[in-house]
């Protein structure tokens, strides 16, 4: 028998939960601590988690630790997951909050130079005021709260509502934080030029 198709609204998009979520059996095995299930979930979602962690923390070492912590704790955490919600955004939310916690508690600067960390390609658009390297450096100047919204909006392409859902704040608060983050970036980038 086919499992019923569950729909969930994320921001303004309607998400077909059954198409995007891991099947319930896999999550059930994961919840029991099954290593193969953890491997399967890791292979599907690790890129997302690592990318967000790297962009939020700006440090490959921190991103490694965040991703490590998320997946080590996932079998226990998944027991709090609401299967009516899409799994991917939920897991990204966990990653965002884990990275924020790390940033706040450690308050440390990145340990490795940025180009080596991200392996970013050199931009061809020479006339641009901001290239990605400059952006990375500027992001590093932001507080964790402001950095998170910029990463989620500009790098992850999320809507205000999705950012709000991930960070556990209201849509209005997400809009205010993004507005502030961009102002701050503008100041930083002006200072760099």
């Amino acid at each position, binding site marked *: 028998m086919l499992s019923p198709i569950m729909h969930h609204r994320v921001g303004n998009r309607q998400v077909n939960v059954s198409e995007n979520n891991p099947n319930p059996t896999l999550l059930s095995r994961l919840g029991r601590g099954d290593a193969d299930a953890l491997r399967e979930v*890791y292979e599907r979602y*690790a890129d997302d988690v690592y990318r967000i962690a790297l962009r939020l923390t700006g440090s490959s070492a921190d991103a490694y630790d965040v991703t490590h912590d998320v997946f*080590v704790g996932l*079998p226990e955490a998944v027991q709090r997951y609401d299967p009516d919600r899409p799994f991917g955004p939920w897991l990204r939310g966990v990653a965002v909050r884990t990275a924020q916690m790390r940033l706040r508690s450690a308050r440390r600067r990145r340990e490795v130079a940025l180009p080596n960390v991200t392996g970013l390609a050199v931009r061809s658009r020479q006339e641009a005021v*901001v290239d990605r390297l400059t*952006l990375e450096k500027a992001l590093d100047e932001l507080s964790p709260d402001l950095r998170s919204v910029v990463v989620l909006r500009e*790098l992850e392409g999320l809507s205000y509502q999705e950012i709000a859902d991930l960070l556990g*704040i209201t849509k*209005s608060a997400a809009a205010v934080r993004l507005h502030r983050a961009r102002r701050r970036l503008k100041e930083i980038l002006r200072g760099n030029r």
Partner: protein
Amino acid sequence: MIAIKRHPSWRDLNRLADGELDAEARGAALEHLASCTRCSGHVSLLNDLHEAGRDMRHPSPPKDLLDDILRDRAQGLRTILPAVPPSQRPPRRLLPAAAAVAVMASLAGLATLTLTSEAGAGASELTVDPALPLPGQEIRLAYRPGVELAGEAALRLRLRLRAPDSEPPRETLGAYDEVILQPDGNGLYVGSFQLPADFAYAVMAVEDLSGAHLDDRGGRLWDLRAHGDDDVPLPSALRQEFLVQQNRSWPEARDVLHEMTLLYPDMAEGWSMQLTYGEDTRLPAEAAVNLAGHREHFRRLERELEDAEPSADEVAAMVRYAAALPDQEALDHWLGRLESIAPAHRVVLSYRVAGVGPDPNDAARYLESLWSVEEYHTVPVCRAGYGAAVATGDAFLTREWATRCLPLADDHWFALDLALALVAHDETRERGIREIRTLVDHVSERPADERPLHFALDEARWESRVLKATLRIALGRQLLVSGEPVSAVFELDAADDLDLWLPDLYRMRLEALLSIGDERAARLDFHRLDADPVYPRESVDSLRRLLPSMTRLDRAEGRRQAESEMIRRVFLDQDPGRGLPPVQLFTSTGQSHALESLLYGRPTVLLIWDRRVFGSPDVVAEVIRASDLLEGGPGQVLWVTPEPDSESLQSFVRESGLDLPLYHDQGSELAIQLGDWGMRGYIVIDGAGRIRARTHSLMEAVRHLEVLRLGSRNTA
């Protein structure tokens, strides 16, 4: 009218870059961008941010990470991950609108912090030839500079010319003239200019060509009156001088009125203003003694004018005189007569709005009828009409007058009032917001030659920043009470970018942020209020309860950072101060003391205060609060007054409960030396006897003193 040139707000530029502007607003913004490099630069930056974000590759985790995870779990390692909270709904508003209004009300007194250049008076001298000029005559000037302006290649004399019918001066957009003074080789700077045919009175100041150094005669300014062929000052000259001086120096203004009654005993104007001013300046005893004489004068003038054809201004003076006596029957008679010959006269308007009776609708109807005649589309009619509309409580009528008057508004504060009235309602909000942003743009681009005479360029820039912040805060407050907290935060953020220390802004923004559920962001503003030495502790305590997730450690750390920010912001652009002038002050028993000897090395707020002019209970309460705040600490408040000792003064001190050291400043010598002549001013002096700040807000002075203390403690 204020010229309109508006840039889209930062928020709108963001919405444009995000594709969230509606078609109409987008079209307008794009049209603006085509001709504005500043705004197009902002949008390019935002687009670049998007592009840079898209350009980033998607890195993958290191290959050994999964093995590490599986091995660690196999060895029993577990981590506790943070929960993802459910989406939040905006909580209810925390404060009623009235509370926010009260917060804003305190901003009305937001003081301009001014910086001193030099005392200015003394060595310099300005000679005007002829000394008793007629309107239309050519004037030759010879200026001998003091130390500060000596040796300049040329100097600029700035002057404000007033005509017989000029309105009372306000902090308005200035219309100043200037004369370049050239050195004559004998230590003088000379120049000339032609007085206009309708000249009545002028005030003047001299500065270097860069506007950096100013000689405003210790705040008094130089002045020039129009005279008649008989070498007697014209009545219009005295009237205009009084209008200027009444806001600057109480004794000087009284002297002008006295001169007017001596020179023109048959004019009601001098007598009426003298009586009114005597009451206003808290000398009822003196007024009572003279009341019988005034009644006699009034009757005599009535007899003389009854069958004559007096001018509107003469009749207006009789209205004022009748009101001051007071004589209601005579007031009605002369007001009716004035109304018949000049229905839109300023005096008619003021009595129509304020004195017409308990029903403000009468005044509103009268002003509505005036407005139907195009000839009366004037600023005084606008002010009266808008005031009457507000008094009726009729929102539609208020918006109607605000819309009518905005194109005529002749100063920032009136324009701000009108625009806020539009912001208060959904259907006119966008227009009101646009108008306020236009004002902010105007302040930003205000040319240097519009500044008041007694402001050097740096002071004018500072004043501009304060004014911009005040306008934005006012808009933020109105948006907040209109239920638009996100927009309010944007405006308040823009005001905060001006790098001033503004506790009322922090209070308002804290409320806005809490109302959209962002407690973490609200904490920053709480820390600022917590660090502020003047902000009421009970308010801080009650705000603390609205931030339940903040720990003691968070609070201590946040407060420490906020203190550093406060020290930087409060003393931004401040120089290390200058020494005290060598002035003698006197006790009530006549003993003289050098100012320096009264400080005993303590940080001090010098309160230069004439209670006869500024003796309202509010001011007294503020003085008492300032003393209380400093009690027990190293700081002190000294009261310096130009008023001689008297039973009246002593009884005022007793009855008001003031407990301050009081000294008399004979001839206002100290105030003149400090450039605060004629004003209520607060001077902040550090423990080394250096003047560190000058402000017109007592609480701000106390804050400065406390910040000085914090700064020295941190340095130590």
